[in-house]
């Protein structure tokens, strides 16, 4: 398979949330999401209840994929930052560590400049956490000590899902 499986552990999940919670405060944002490039929501902080987070994640990934395609057509590797301006709310979308998408939703209480500045700092921290996560998953796989929950599932378990 071309991609290793994306795995998230408690420890890193907590670390990630600390970083994006702080970004939420510092950037004066309404909501912040982290999304995998394949469209899976990793985490979200702020006023997440008001939004359909699953759809948001999927469309964000589609958006990044489409603009990535555009970038390649004009000879760029990717467009690492996208900005969508609305009447009230704006979206700042950026790629972290080449793999994860950081989405910051903000309104007039913040500004694009502030968001960009804060995102830049947090991106480095997030990038380091995701590197660690990837290494951890690889190490576990090498050692064969994977605590993968599906290794012991039975056919009955799977059948039960559909009953």
């Amino acid at each position, binding site marked *: *398979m*071309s*991609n*290793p*499986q*994306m*795995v*998230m*552990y*408690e420890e890193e*999940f*907590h670390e990630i949330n600390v970083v994006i919670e702080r970004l939420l405060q510092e950037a004066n944002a309404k909501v912040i999401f982290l999304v*995998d*490039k*394949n*469209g*899976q929501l*990793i985490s979200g902080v702020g006023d997440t209840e008001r939004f*359909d987070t*699953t*759809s948001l994640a*999927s*469309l964000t990934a*589609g958006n990044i*994929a*489409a603009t*990535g*395609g555009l970038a390649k057509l004009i000879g760029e590797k990717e467009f690492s930052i996208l900005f969508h301006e609305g009447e009230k709310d704006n979206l700042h979308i950026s790629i972290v560590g080449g793999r994860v998408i950081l989405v910051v939703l903000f309104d007039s209480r913040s500004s694009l400049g502030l968001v960009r500045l804060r995102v830049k700092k947090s991106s480095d921290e997030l990038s380091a956490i995701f590197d660690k996560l990837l290494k951890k998953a690889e190490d576990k*796989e090498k050692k064969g000590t*994977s605590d*993968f*929950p*599906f*290794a*012991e*599932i039975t*056919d009955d*378990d*799977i059948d*039960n*899902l*559909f009953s």
Partner: protein
Amino acid sequence: MSFINYASREINCKIVYYGPGLCGKTTNLQYVYQKTAPDAKGKMISLATETERTLFFDFLPLALGEIRGFKTRFHLYTVPGQVFYDASRKLILKGVDGVVFVADSQEERIDANIESLDNLRFNLKEQGYDLDKLPYVIQYNKRDLPGAMPVEEMRRDLNPTNVLEYEACATTGEGVFETLKAIAKLILIDLKKGK
């Protein structure tokens, strides 16, 4: 590529419905959406043209239930079937865990089916996947139409590797859930083997 989250105890998988234009990929998803309990599904998103042709993708998140304390979620996507949307199709295959190939049973669409299947194989390869190693099922759709080809002939052209296949009529829902269950099951078995 599935996403396992130990913190929220969730496992997410991506299923892509592939096939030629107007073969019924979106109709498959619409039927699943209509027949699924509200608490098990999210909003269905269709990025379509004004004439309801899929422009980028349709998306439907489904929660199947729990396995060993992990919530299993499947994200269903369709690709735009029309030939000239190939760039968009490639993007949607990124991170795919399982593929449903929806074939149009009408005799005049057999060439379109074959072309789309070749295109699937090629696009997967570009992303580093091999169709023969992925969870993959075929659905022969539109079996209710008078011009439907015999299944044996379609099998010869479209299913040389003998993967699981289902006859369907997506507008009435016949075969839709059978197909979905089959691919979901193959993905879970694959996950189990993978570690």
